[in-house]
């Protein structure tokens, strides 16, 4: 029986558009796009130029800091465009897909017989190292540093989150292979956190790992919460974090010898006509999927990921590298609601009790619903922040960029996503995740 940890603080935002547990088919697109900004902490150096042909699994670019860290092309085909933004920053790399996907053969391997160094090299060379993130700083893991422990999240509690049980169904062998590989990379433990409701045997009976159940509202499924309860990160320590569906990429590399960046993705949100699960490659264009499945009323916001941490994409955007979910909600910029401060409308949702909660699920749009203010209300963040950290004080120390205070208050333990719920409930409408991201980036620059 796995240990069970109960989380009390948090919030399950009741949104309309939960994904129905039905598989609705595979989505392919003519063009596949990879956006380097998805790989937090990597400065990309190109390996290809426009006109080159690539195989699936062949590197598109590598990390400037770690030239052996590649990022793979999800698909075989021809590089047709490399878009750049300000200061020649690479925005995206577009590959026109071949009819038949041809993979680079990295060779099958029995993980048991491989030394840790070999596993590390293979992951870096195959271009899937990016699925491993590290704390501190919440960036793609530094392959030069041995992690104290590795934390794998086996469920997602975010709003309208996909079921990992469903995603992992039938792929248990790849999951276990990936976990075995990870276990070799740390002298410490591999922790796998699961939901008490998990039925998937691949998760519940996973070997080579310490399984812990986390019960409670979001952010019980956030890796930051789990680390804080299991073995918090201290100054000078490094831990790695992964999501269970990401572990599949590692498993496939060793079991099949190929880089197969196929994800099972949930299409969710109040504006989706028919929710459900689709399989697609990372970087797949979503124009067709959205066109068929999204209701056309009003301005819409398309999100790769969930409503708390996802990336805004256009209707013609692509599935971003780290996401297993697509969400479509109303944009709301065409709505003018009179006297919001006095509103008794049942359509408005608040975590607190300043509005009556009359509905079971809400159709929320992307409006801020207020203007930015100084931090006024107290104990607002704490209620949705289960970590043993003072969120408000940490945010203030980041704003002042007081490094000593940031360290003392636990900056090394957190990622922007841990503050997502705080940002949602914030009466002062501050961009907390951006503040934390900026703080982490500045601190990393200072320390490394």
């Amino acid at each position, binding site marked *: 029986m796995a240990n069970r940890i109960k989380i009390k603080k948090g919030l399950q935002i009741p949104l309309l558009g939960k994904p129905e547990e039905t598989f609705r088919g595979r989505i392919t697109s003519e063009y596949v796009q990879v956006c380097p900004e998805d790989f937090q902490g990597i400065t990309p150096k190109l390996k290809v130029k426009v006109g080159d042909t690539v195989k699936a699994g062949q590197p598109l670019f590598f990390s400037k800091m770690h030239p052996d860290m590649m990022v793979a092309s999800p698909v075989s085909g021809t590089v047709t465009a490399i878009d750049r933004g300000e200061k020649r920053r690479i925005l995206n790399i577009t590959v026109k897909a071949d009819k038949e996907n041809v993979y680079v053969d990295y060779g099958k391997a029995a993980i048991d017989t491989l030394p840790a160094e070999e596993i590390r090299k293979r992951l870096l060379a195959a271009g899937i190292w990016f699925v491993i993130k590290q704390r501190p700083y919440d960036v793609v893991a530094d392959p030069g540093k041995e992690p104290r422990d590795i934390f794998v999240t086996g469920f997602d509690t975010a709003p309208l989150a996909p079921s990992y049980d469903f995603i992992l169904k039938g792929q248990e062998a790849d999951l276990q292979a990936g976990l075995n590989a990870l276990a070799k990379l740390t002298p410490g433990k591999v922790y796998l956190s699961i939901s008490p409701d998990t039925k998937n045997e691949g998760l519940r009976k996973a070997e080579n790992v310490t399984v812990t159940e986390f019960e409670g509202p979001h952010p019980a499924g956030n890796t930051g919460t789990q680390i804080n309860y299991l073995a918090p990160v201290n100054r000078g320590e490094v831990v790695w974090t992964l999501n269970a569906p990401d572990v599949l990429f590692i498993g496939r590399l060793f079991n099949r010898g190929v880089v197969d960046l196929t994800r099972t993705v949930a299409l969710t949100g109040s504006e989706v006509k028919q929710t459900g699960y689709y399989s697609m490659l990372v970087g797949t264009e979503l124009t067709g999927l959205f066109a068929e499945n999204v209701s056309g009323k009003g301005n819409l916001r398309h999100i790769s990921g969930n*409503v*708390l941490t996802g990336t805004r994409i256009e209707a013609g955007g692509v599935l971003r590298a780290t996401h297993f979910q697509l969400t479509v909600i109303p944009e709301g910029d065409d709505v*003018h609601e009179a006297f919001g401060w006095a509103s008794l409308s049942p359509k408005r949702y608040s975590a607190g009790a*300043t509005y009556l909660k009359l509905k079971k699920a809400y159709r929320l749009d*992307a409006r801020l619903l207020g203007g930015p203010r100084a931090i006024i209300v107290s104990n607002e963040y704490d209620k949705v922040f289960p970590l043993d950290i003072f969120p408000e004080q940490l945010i203030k120390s980041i704003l002042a960029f007081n490094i000593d205070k940031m360290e003392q208050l636990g900056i090394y333990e957190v990622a922007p996503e841990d503050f997502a719920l705080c940002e949602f409930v914030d009466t002062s409408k501050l961009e907390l995740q951006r503040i934390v991201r900026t703080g982490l980036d500045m601190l990393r620059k200072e320390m490394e």
Partner: protein
Amino acid sequence: MSLRKFLDKIKPNFEEGGKFHWLNSTYDAFETFLYVPNKTSKSGVHIHDARDSKRTMVIVILALIPALLMGMYNVGYQHYLAVNVQAGFMETFLYGLLAILPQIVVSYVVGLGIEFAMAQMKKEEVAEGFLVSGLLIPMILPVDTPLWMIAVATAFSVIFAKEVFGGTGYNIFNVALIARAFLFFAYPSKMSGDQVWVRTADTFGLGGGNVVDGFSGATPLGQLAVSDVSRFGDFSFLGITGNPLSLWDMFIGLTPGSVGEVSTLAILLGAVLLIVTGVGSWKTMLSVFFGGLFTVALLNVLAQNAAMEMPPLYHFLLGGFAFGAVFMATDPVTSARTEKGKWIYGFLIGVVAILIRIFNPGYPEGMMLAILFMNAFAPLIDFYVVDANIKRRLKRAAVKK
């Protein structure tokens, strides 16, 4: 939607480069008052909670309404008692309304005027904090405070207690209490004594008459402070015409005192709203009463005079104790911000308020000074609460090595 069309039409004038760009904050304040802004999120979370700063302040104002209405009624009640005229309910209330309304208007016009001007200078949105402070100021003053004094005190406190620190959210001391403290020390004769708590003159021609013989406008706490009775059992609180005051009178608020503070019943109604909506911290409120109860109980045991013998219930019903606990101590900006800190902060307010009441012969009421005093210490309390968390983290790191 014609109002919306009108707003959209005039909006360009107020934007950068427009004719009235120097009124941008003012335009924004009115537009967001009328309509929820349609700005959508640029970074971070894609959805936001419906609660904003405006909603929060509106809840506080709603919570203040019962105390304000009871206070208005009491102003009329005390007046007609003083001039010995039988007046109906509506007339009594109307007298109070006419007495208080100009004070509210003055406080809002002066305070919001400064807030709008400052927001405009800083090119920021107008913060809503003063909507509450502006209502609190007339409610914690004696009814006979001249309007010009309210204007001066409001201006002083908004500028020197709030704007110099950076505006709403950055002030150290409670703005409304600073306004009262300013008047208390600058014009003591208008803030204390027997003459200021009951309006005896007519208001806009309403309720004229001569004051009855034997009239005394002293507040109950004031009476106790100057009394030479040595046992509380022998002491009785008197109304302004010499009639004895019952506990019930004190509970519903038919005693002389600051406008909003008299009715404990109405304050409790407000407290319920603040607690149910989560806008006011029940921890702070409760701990203020705990602190008071603890101190009074201790003094009752050690009692040397009538004031020290007064039971806790009287302390809670009289003066500004309940009002301070519910509406002043809970101001999130000037209170302790950590949950453990709130217990300590509230408890010490209760302790200090009672100590000032009983041991300082100059001030029969101690709530205002107690809260201002603890405002100064709130950051220190938080420092130690947060420091415990820091120590725990350091210890954890040390054990690992």
